[in-house]
């Protein structure tokens, strides 16, 4: 074998191993993060964490019950505003649209999807917080809802388009009107995909911190109603991690573990639902 071929073979082996190493490094990051969260936060995730209010500085114990409920409320209201908007817009693009206007909406949605979350925070701040003169659950939800809309819109469109044309034609041939076809045939057929898209979008905004800092603000107590500043897990993690107290750092780790656990479970779960759906539809 000539020197040149030996050289080529060794370059081949070295470079291919390097790509393997890059993969290993990248994939291991997730497990490193999970490992550290479990190591530092695992022991603090207990009954108190889910049921108690935060304690004042210096008192140990306490939990983040208000932040967990707060995150839930923010997500709920955001979903109530953002999901129907994205869903109906997606139905338009997939079923009724066509032509320049649809492309235009699609392009704007992609554009909105790429806007940094901090800019969404500014938007909610100028539109909701300033007129009301204080942060509120409403403002935080508004910011999250604006982030939800483009994601839900695009995924809904994508999954409705994936429904076979034969189903559509079958329904229309039976004399169903267009919206009846959409509501009774296409939506149910694409349900799993659409639901997955919605779940994934919720998991994504659940961890958003930047748009909440100056819209939802923070609160060390319960925040009844929608009109006052409200605690949320991501903002709590941020504030506690940057504080000077060992005990708060411990709590930040625990909250991080709970938040990441939620995001990973929803992401994995929706993935499983989707793959099951495709298998059963193939079999049927």
């Amino acid at each position, binding site marked *: 074998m000539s020197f040149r071929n030996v050289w080529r073979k060794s370059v081949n082996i070295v470079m*291919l191993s*390097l*790509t393997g190493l890059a*993969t290993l490094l990248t994939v291991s990051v997730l497990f490193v993060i999970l490992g550290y969260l479990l190591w530092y936060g695992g022991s603090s995730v207990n009954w108190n964490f889910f049921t108690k209010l935060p304690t004042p500085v210096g008192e140990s114990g306490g939990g983040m019950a208000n932040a967990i409920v707060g995150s839930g409320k923010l997500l709920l209201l955001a979903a109530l505003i953002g999901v129907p908007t994205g869903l109906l817009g997606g139905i338009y693009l997939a079923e009724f649209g066509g032509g320049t206007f649809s492309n235009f909406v699609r392009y704007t949605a992609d554009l909105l999807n790429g806007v940094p979350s901090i800019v969404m*925070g*500014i938007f909610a701040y100028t539109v909701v917080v300033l007129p009301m003169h204080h942060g509120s659950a409403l403002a935080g939800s508004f910011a999250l809802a604006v982030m939800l*809309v483009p994601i839900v819109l695009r995924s809904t469109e994508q999954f409705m388009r994936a429904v076979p044309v034969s189903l559509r034609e079958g329904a229309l041939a039976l004399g169903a*009107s267009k919206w009846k076809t959409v509501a009774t045939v296409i939506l149910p057929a694409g349900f799993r995909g659409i639901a997955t898209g919605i779940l994934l979008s919720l998991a994504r905004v659940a961890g958003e911190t930047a748009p909440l800092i100056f819209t939802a603000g923070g609160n060390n107590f319960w925040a009844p109603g929608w009109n006052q500043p409200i605690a949320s897990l991501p903002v709590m993690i941020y504030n506690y991690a940057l504080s000077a107290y060992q005990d708060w750092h411990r709590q930040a*780790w625990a909250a991080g573990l709970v938040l990441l656990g939620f*995001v990973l479970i929803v992401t994995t779960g929706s993935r499983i639902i989707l793959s099951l759906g495709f298998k059963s539809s193939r079999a049927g």
Partner: protein
Amino acid sequence: MRAFIDRVRSGDEIAYLITWAFAASVFLITCLLVYELWATSSLPRHKFGWSFLVTSVWDPVFEQFGALPFIYGTLVTSALALLIAVPLGVGAAIFLAELAPPRISDGLSFVIELLAAVPSVIYGVVGIFVMVPLLRRYVEVPLKAAFGYLPLFKGPAVGVGFLAAGVVLAVMVVPFILSISREVLLSVPVDQREAALALGATKWESTWKVVVPYARSGIMGSIFLALARALGETMAVTMVIGNNPQIAASLFAPGYSIAAVIANELAEASSEMHYEALIELGLVLFAVTIVINALARILILTTAGRGTAH
């Protein structure tokens, strides 16, 4: 006319109008967003003009606002991030698309998808408590000992700073480069690879000299997408960059980024001018990410189009 009445009865027109309204609302929201950013940043735009972007005094007390330190911090950290993330992401994409068996490739891609879903505040927590101390002890101190005479590595190695922010950003954007590059590589027609291999190329040569050039614009697109993410990333950067508005050549020095200063100061802005200057920073960030995102999309679409044409 009758046909129209029939269609209204059957609900088609109503359904059309309702869904149209919601689709249009996406456009309206975007317009409102642009308008708000533009209208609420008029004070500093009129007072400072373009010099806002190139002066470096940020003094809320005397109402002097120049954004240069923040722009500098954002650019330096994003550049560092790409420097680290591009070889990692593209390398791993090559492995997953070209070498790994499909089953393993799909499994690992799912792990990458999960990695992309990790909230940025969690990267910040792990960054500030775990990565920053490690970085200082095992990277900054040795680098300083070996190359301390270079301006790049001057000054005290405190841990938080441009380098820390760059590394955290790199870790955060790798999944985006990886997953899109992998898809683009997978869409390269098989006959391209076979032709190269039939000519006697090694696996690496066929990949590096045939497949990757074929997918070049798509890979560039994924890099631009990652860049847009890195520029706008807030929480993780805020937590590890040191939050000190200065322009320093040293990578170890603490800095500041556009997103970080907005996150830290907007709620406590001391005056109307201060508040609007922060919004103008948001406007700058918005404009830059829009342009980069658009570029990314065009690049990815061109490759995807080429892939299906065969």
